[in-house]
């Protein structure tokens, strides 16, 4: 199908973009990489009167590190994140995850800001952001707001962004020497949206977790920062602790049934991922036995 008619405008400064969003409100849609918006327009799931193309706001393209924070501009494309030396060094979880996001031709256009603003519950980046305790920076004419990633995602395709706000960047605390990460997703094909996935970031203290942040995706209406992690922190992990954590995890999950997988399968796969994650991060093959439990 073809998109219905709209008017198109391409501001060249952030201030102009924010003024346009303030003026048109709900009648406008921000166009970034277009890799989620254009399908929605072509399928006529969305029919805005105005498209505000932010592709010309080159200030938003930068990836940089300063004062312990990796800042990724909203217009950094998936391929830029994938190839960034700063990302590889300071937030390698993102590079691990990005290879699972769509396909090369889509990664050449899709942007970090668009991906996070789109808030697909099966999407990798939102889960990485909650695992990495990122801050999402949004701006309107009224000023800037800084939101914890876990407060930003509020439902299926729903975020805390207001119509007149632009997501401008995401800020991630840089990984330290004891940081380890895990990423794995179950998908039918390379590049497809996940059936269930886990992006995790942890701090090790000897053979234990000093901290463990588990970002599950495709397990509910938004990425889940699993509180089940508390069963695994501060002491050497035993099979009994892992079993307790798996049970706690299952209680937190609220997966959807869709053509990809029924609810029970998603819950099962999430438990498997938790065991795989803990066994991998601690180098404890014995705990992987919990996968088939």
């Amino acid at each position, binding site marked *: *199908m*073809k*998109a*219905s*008619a*709209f*008017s*198109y405008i*391409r501001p060249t400064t952030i201030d102009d973009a924010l003024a346009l969003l303030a003026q048109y409100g709900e009648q406008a849609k921000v*166009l970034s990489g*277009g*890799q989620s918006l*254009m*399908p929605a*327009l*072509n*399928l006529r799931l969305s029919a805005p009167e105005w*498209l505000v*193309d932010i*592709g010309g706001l080159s200030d938003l393209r930068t990836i940089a590190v300063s004062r312990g924070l990796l800042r990724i501009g909203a217009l950094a494309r998936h*391929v830029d994140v994938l190839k960034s030396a700063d990302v590889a060094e300071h937030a390698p979880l993102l590079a691990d995850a990005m290879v699972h996001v*769509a*396909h*090369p*031709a*889509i990664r*050449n*256009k899709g942007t970090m800001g668009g991906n996070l603003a789109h808030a697909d519950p099966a999407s990798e980046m939102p889960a990485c952001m909650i695992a990495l305790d990122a801050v999402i920076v949004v701006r309107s004419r009224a000023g800037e707001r800084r939101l914890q990633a876990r407060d930003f995602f509020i439902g299926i395709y729903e975020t805390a962004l207001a119509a007149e706000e632009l997501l401008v960047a995401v800020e991630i605390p840089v990984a330290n020497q004891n940081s380890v990460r895990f990423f794995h997703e179950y998908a039918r*094909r*390379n*590049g497809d949206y996940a059936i269930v996935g886990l992006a995790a970031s942890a701090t090790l203290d000897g053979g234990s977790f000093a901290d463990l942040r588990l970002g599950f995706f495709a397990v509910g209406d938004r990425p889940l920062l699993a509180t089940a992690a508390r069963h695994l922190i501060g002491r050497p992990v035993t099979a009994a602790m892992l079993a307790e954590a798996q049970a706690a995890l299952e209680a937190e999950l609220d997966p959807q049934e869709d053509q990809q997988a029924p609810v029970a399968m998603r819950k099962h796969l999430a438990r498997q991922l938790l065991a795989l994650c803990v066994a991998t991060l601690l180098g404890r093959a014995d705990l992987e036995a919990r996968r088939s439990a």
Partner: protein
Amino acid sequence: MTAPVAVSLTVNGERIDAQVLPRLNLADFLREHLGLTGTHVGCEHGVCGACTVRVDGDIVRACLLLAVQTHNASVETIEGLSDSGEVADLQAAFCNRNALQCGYCTPGMLMAAQDLLRQNAAPDRAQIREHLSGNYCRCTGYHAIIDAVEATALARRGEQP
């Protein structure tokens, strides 16, 4: 305005000045306004890859890009890559290995395969599959396509298959 907008771009090296409606996507612009029908349209929502073209050197989905967004850009289509001879060996390998049947996916496959070979002269089969994972083929079952790309990579490196 929903009225036409002026755009200037180059398509296969040739300068084009046109008036386009904002909602017109690049695939339709190439096919219907410029008569470049080698860029195919399958799904119109990014999943099949039949519309793959190069914009400023990067492969993209022409169905997910507005023609107005290509103002000042350099667009290359399968016609451009064929006429310049850039993919002649890849095309020959596709024929030799029966890597096409109906041919609907072929322009997009060639664009994606050539993109891989420009970035990686010695891809293994898994890397070829990964790079072509966004391109559907409903006829060949993919193996012959992977074979053709692998054979072209070998030949370009001066090695025997």
